[in-house]
């Protein structure tokens, strides 16, 4: 009974993760599918050929590259902008904080189709040519709100005494921020960055309106879907996932080694 009690949480977490990955399992499986036609809807047999030629569809590789670049850049900038805003909102009392709060919430409430089209109107009126740059601008714009809300959740529970202690020990505000505050809110910042990345890499509607002639991965997939769903798309999704996980694992192992080395050196 105690065994169950102790492990019920872990069992539950495993189930939740399994649920999260159930469709992904299907996606991975279908990346090995061998349909004769252009649709990848039903299982027709196993093949390695999709994995051997993942970029077989012209345009797929280019679209993917654009998506990853935009996701990395937009999450970087949105995280910086959003963290600063979160710091201001949580820590300071100032005129206009209520309005700023509103300004942060409203973009999340706006339906994508009108947000995308209205932004396009701005670009057209101001004669800004649409392409990579405008997609990036749009992604940073809608990501900021998500970053603010996420980082704020971390900042609100932050124990200010730690900062006070640092300053009592002679650190000035800058140093306190860099050496005490930032590392402690880093999980919040990281989570916000991850969310932004996810939002950006999967965005379709807003991107569509503001992309000009640039094609991102979701745009390619949605566009192609009218006539085909090549298994290569599954391959690429799976591959990105594997690369990301491997990268993260490597990072953890590396950190571990560093800690061990540090401990030995001490």
């Amino acid at each position, binding site marked *: 009974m105690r065994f169950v009690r102790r492990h019920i949480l872990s069992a539950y977490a495993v189930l939740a993760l399994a649920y999260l990955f159930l469709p992904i399992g299907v996606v991975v499986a279908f990346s090995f599918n061998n349909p004769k036609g252009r649709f990848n*809807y039903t299982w027709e047999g196993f093949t390695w050929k999709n994995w051997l030629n993942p970029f077989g569809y*012209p345009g797929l590789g280019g679209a993917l590259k654009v998506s990853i670049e935009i996701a990395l850049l937009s999450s970087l900038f949105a995280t910086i902008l959003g963290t600063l805003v979160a710091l201001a909102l949580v820590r300071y009392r100032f005129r206009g904080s209520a309005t700023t709060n509103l300004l942060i919430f409203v973009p999340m409430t706006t339906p994508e189709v009108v947000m995308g089209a209205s932004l396009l109107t701005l670009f057209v009126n101001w004669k800004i040519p649409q392409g990579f740059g405008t997609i990036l601008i749009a992604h940073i714009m809608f990501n900021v709100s998500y970053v603010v809300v996420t980082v704020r959740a971390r900042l609100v529970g932050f124990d200010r005494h730690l900062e006070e202690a640092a300053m009592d020990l002679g650190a000035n505000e800058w140093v306190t921020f860099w050496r005490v505050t930032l590392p402690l809110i880093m999980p919040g910042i990281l989570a916000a960055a991850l969310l932004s990345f996810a939002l950006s890499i999967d965005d379709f509607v807003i991107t569509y309106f503001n992309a000009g002639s640039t*094609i991102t991965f979701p745009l390619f997939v949605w566009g*192609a879907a009218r006539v085909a769903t090549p298994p290569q798309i599954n391959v690429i999704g799976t591959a990105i996932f594997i690369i990301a996980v491997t990268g993260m694992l490597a990072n953890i192992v590396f950190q571990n080694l560093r800690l061990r080395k540090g401990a030995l050196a001490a």
Partner: protein
Amino acid sequence: MTESYNRKELLRRGVAGSALLTVPGLLAACGGGSKNAATTAASTTAQTMPKKLTWSNWPLYIDINEKTKTHPSLVAFEKHYGVKVTYLEDINDNDSFFGKIEGPLSQGQSIGRDLIVMTDSSGLPQRMVQLGWLEKLDKSAIPNIKNLQPTQQHPSWDPNRDYSLPWQSGMTGIGYDPKLVGGDIDSLQQLLTDPKLKGKVTMLTEMSDSIGITMLANGDDPLHVTDKTFNAAVSRLQKAVSSGQIRQFTGNDYAPLLANGSIYACLAWSGDMVQLQADHPGLKWVLPKDGGMIWTDNMLIPKGGNVFGASTLMNWYYRPDIAAEVEDYVNYICPVVGADKVLEKQDPAVAKNPLIFPTKAMLANAHEFDGKALNNEKYKKAFQQLIGG
């Protein structure tokens, strides 16, 4: 970027600055002449090939050589004329693409494309003609226009093919799984009323397809829509929606449902069926006996595109051998006479497939939808109410 403003331009910009989203039509109507020399090719009646052309099309809608990852027909064109063609596959939905280009076009700005491909069943090519957003074709550069299928030569909305040439067509009919249906289907009536099919039928979100086929089943003419015939079609469909007979209205996402057996029958496009049948040879497709619909993806030259260059490009694809090359990959309906003869030797399976080269009888039973009705807001709203939006 240098721009020359004339007084009209400045005035317009100042007054309409923040209301530009609100009066695109007015601007187009009064501002057609004063364009910015902002982007790529300016429209010209000169007969010299430009150095570059930009063509927007639907994805996977042109021949592909999977090894070299190029489009052989396009590469051949580039070599022949010494032109660089930027081929963009950024049209994936007519309405969305239109939503994207109407801003610049309504203000007389070029959209940086010489050729675009849009579907007549969306009503948008018709709309663009009305709004004056399309250039006329340079027919002197398109001698191969004589190869256009006779049935495609005089569509109701562009009777002389002054603004458009078909790229590919498709037919809308009934796709079904005979095993699950328990036999064959040949009428809309069965789709809408057979109790065995309850909840296993889907219709299309394209008004021209769903309403068009229903009108034909009612004995009405979809090419000449009236309030009476429209409402009759809507109420017939509404009954089937309310009873739960019609499961969903879909874009082409009926295809996975048909493939995995979640639906037994649906309104389906011929090109999709060709692909589905490759893996599910048991699936069938027919034109309803009362008639089906035919839609066409048309090549259009938006304002500001290079007319001679785009026309020459169109002409290239009306060579039977080139059309055959494209058709062998795309597998929709070819508008070029003679392409099937070319394919008879290379790929007889494609040449003989009536879903790609339909018979005269099939073409006679496939109808066009009234372009005016497609742009009638009242009808559109009523249809959207029907399908749930």
